[in-house]
């Protein structure tokens, strides 16, 4: 399927999903408030922690806040576009996936089309606000503002792709195990939360995991190092983008392999 027809299909499916979600629209304001309380609480805890230890290995409070803001933004973006995939096992358990597979649409695209969730946009806005505030405190926009903004955007894209890759791989595991929800905290939310802190706080072998099996480093830490001019050159932003895209491509291959092991349900 070509990119263009894929996009057309996706748009049509997303529109339909939005229409059916509109029926429960009363939720929007509520989840906005709820999300922002959650994010603020998490941020406060993180910052208190950093403040207590007088910064983490050369990262001051504002820098950690920037990292946190970047992670929140890409997490929110992924949730806005691919939320269903995190509870994908329900499709497998109740056989709803049968209906997905009868349509002339690649299965992943069809699930993505059902995933659009505008309620999560609040997270993106909050993440961006945190980035803006901390960035201003740090003065990163003073010189080369456009370059920095470009780097931030690229970072959000890689962060989102990493989320998508990890969620896709995990959802694909659901074709073999019914324990995906017990794995989720460990292999998805764990690494993603870890990535809201400077990865230098972790022992080397754990840090290596974050560059390989759970490649969260490319979504937050590595680009943030570039943006904060902590050593790595601007090319690392592109490397991160490339790594994130490769991770998603790999996850999608695994997904397609998994779909062929779908066993459906008896009635």
């Amino acid at each position: 399927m070509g990119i263009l027809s894929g996009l057309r299909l996706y748009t049509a499916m997303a529109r339909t999903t939005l229409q059916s979600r509109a029926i429960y629209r009363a939720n929007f304001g509520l989840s906005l408030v709820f999300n922002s309380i959650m994010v603020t609480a998490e941020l406060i805890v993180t910052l208190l922690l950093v403040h207590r230890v007088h910064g983490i290995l050369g990262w001051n409070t504002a820098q950690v806040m920037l990292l946190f803001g970047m992670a929140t933004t890409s997490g929110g973006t992924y949730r806005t576009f691919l939320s269903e995939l995190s509870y994908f096992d329900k499709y497998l358990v109740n056989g709803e996936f049968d209906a997905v597979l009868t349509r002339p649409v690649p299965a992943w695209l069809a699930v993505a089309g059902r995933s659009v969730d505008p309620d999560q946009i609040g997270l993106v806005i909050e993440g961006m606000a945190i980035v803006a505030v901390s960035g201003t405190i740090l003065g990163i926009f003073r010189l080369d503002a456009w370059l920095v903004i470009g780097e931030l955007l690229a970072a959000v894209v890689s962060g989102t792709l990493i989320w998508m890759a990890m969620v896709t791989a995990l959802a694909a595991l659901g074709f073999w195990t019914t324990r995906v929800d017990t794995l989720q905290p460990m292999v998805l939310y764990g690494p993603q939360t870890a990535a809201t802190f400077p990865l230098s706080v972790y022992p080397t072998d754990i840090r290596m995991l974050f560059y390989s099996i759970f490649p969260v480093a490319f979504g937050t830490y590595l680009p943030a190092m570039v943006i904060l001019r902590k050593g790595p050159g601007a090319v690392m932003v592109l490397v991160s983008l490339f790594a994130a895209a490769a991770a998603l491509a790999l996850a999608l291959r695994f997904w397609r392999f998994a779909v062929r092991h779908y066993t459906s349900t008896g009635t």
Partner: protein
Amino acid sequence: MSERTQTRSPIIVADNLEKTFFRGRGRKAVQIPAVKPLSLTVEPGEFIGFLGPNGAGKSTTIKMLIGILEPSGGTVHVDGLIPAKHRVHLALRLGVVFGQRTQLWWDLPLLESYRLLKVMYRVNEADYRRQMETLVELLDLSSFWHTPVRQLSLGQRMRGELAAALLHRPKILVLDEPTIGLDVTAKSDVRRFLLRENRERRTTIVLTTHDMSDVEELCTRIVVINQGIKMFDGTVNHLEERTGALSALHVTFQTTPLWDAINLPGIEHLSSDDDRSVLLHYNRRQFTPPQILEQIREAGRIEDFRMEEPRLELIMRTLYEGDGRLGE
């Protein structure tokens, strides 16, 4: 897709198709051979009744035909494609209805579902209009066109599902129990529609059902499977020739009859609703009703009798319950 290529070659070819499920994990895993090597050939324009008792493997076979399940063994080609491999491509040529489960968007009116299907199946505006007009008329959709699917009655929903499956004018229609739970009128509406689709548009249809009158009215050929094995493949008449033309006679006596006098060779005494009546199964080619009545006169005074004609249902029952061998 609007023009039909009139090829002579079969549209569905299954060759030793197999599916084994595993229940449980690791060493304790149990194998469930749902479909044992099954071969089947369907020509374009056929209306196949795919029959068998609960758990026979009908749905499993259908899921392999449309690419939802990958076969454990054997091969299958549908319109020249390998379903599990070319699923997306094949789906463009298939219409699928699962009676047990909706394929429509639960919260949306039918109209919105169709708009999306139009994009999914790459139907152009003119074809969409034309086909929609036909479907709305034939299936009488206009009265609930704007109602969310979850508020539709089962009969309305099923009409909606059929329209959804036919919007893109598929070459092949696959229906897994499309008449389940429908009342008499809804059933006959669905049947009339399917008959027209098959006879006028030459759409190949594969249908599973437990309702033998669906089969009698619609199918040009039946395939019976039991425990994953094909037991019969041919026309209804052909099946009757092989199993004996089963008929039933329901007899009511004035008082409780002498049961012993009803035990006649070649006539099966099946069931009775009360202690005064009896249901007899016999072969139409062997006996006539007057002959039977004559023979059971000894049992008591007959008050009433009536012929029952659920021919296929009787045949199926003997097929499902028996050892599966067809009397030759």
